[in-house]
């Protein structure tokens, strides 16, 4: 039971995903289709973000004592390698940052960062889709797909 309930975030994701997908498939109204598409995309954002969250973890901000110094001094590959390693460790959920053995648990920032990009993509898609719908309405005078197809068939 706990296994099923403990994964509640996935249940939510799946529920949203299917809701969105259903709307995309079933709705004739173009705007509603786009809304469905948005819900569908959002569910994926949630999937990523919940995946990155580590229980009791905080935001992954490096303390000045650690991050601040290292940034100014190290360069290039060394720097990158260390940085990458941290991120990588964070990805696995248990993080041991800093030599002074301060055990702090961070959430994995990468999924959130990825989603930032995906959100941008989503916005662009939605904007473009809406723009297309506006043009369609100007041309056909309706945004009901079945009516549009009917008009196309007749013309």
């Amino acid at each position, binding site marked *: 039971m706990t296994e099923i309930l403990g994964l509640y975030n996935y249940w939510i994701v799946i529920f949203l995903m299917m809701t969105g997908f259903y709307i995309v498939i079933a709705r004739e109204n173009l705007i509603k289709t786009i809304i469905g598409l948005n819900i569908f995309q959002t569910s994926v954002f949630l999937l990523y973000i919940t995946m990155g969250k580590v229980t009791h973890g905080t935001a992954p901000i490096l303390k000045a004592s650690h991050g601040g110094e290292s*940034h*100014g001094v190290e360069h*290039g590959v060394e720097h990158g390698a260390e940085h990458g390693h941290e991120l990588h460790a964070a990805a696995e959920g248990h993080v041991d940052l800093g030599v002074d053995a301060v055990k702090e648990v961070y959430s994995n920032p990468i999924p959130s960062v990825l989603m*930032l990009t995906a959100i941008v993509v989503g916005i662009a898609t939605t904007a473009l889709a809406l*723009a297309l719908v*506006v043009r369609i*309405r*100007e041309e056909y005078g*309706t945004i009901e797909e079945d009516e549009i197809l009917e008009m196309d068939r007749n013309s």
Partner: protein
Amino acid sequence: MNSFPIIRVITKLLIPYILLFGLYVQFHGDFGPGGGFQAGVIFAAALILYGLVYGLPAVHKVAPPKVIEKLTALGLLVYAGTGLACMLLGGNFLDYDMLNHGFLTELPAALDFLPGDKPHHFLPEGQHLGIFLVELGVGITVTAVMTMIFYAFAGRERVTT
């Protein structure tokens, strides 16, 4: 919505703070949470709010569509230009470490008298400078794009069916 004085006044009061908050988010981007995208959206929110309340002509005066269109491109160019600059300085694309300039990075002695904790950096360099520039570019583009989307939809004629 021109005829609701309360909304007009409140909007006028709100907009400076929205803009200020946008700036905060923008310039905090290379230190902590925040950055160009969020800042851009906040900025654009201010413009859109203005447009909603005072009408499209008013906001066109503040941010002419032509300018906004060019800004979209400009922001992207700032971003890519930063990467290109790194390349021209001998590194890989977006290798910010190439942006180290060694100019006024430490606080000058003349300013020692300032009270409080002394900041680490005076002028950002390397990674900080790179991220700052990139975020700036992103901020400009996002502001412009968001506003442009608003313009595009708000500027359409009403269709009569």
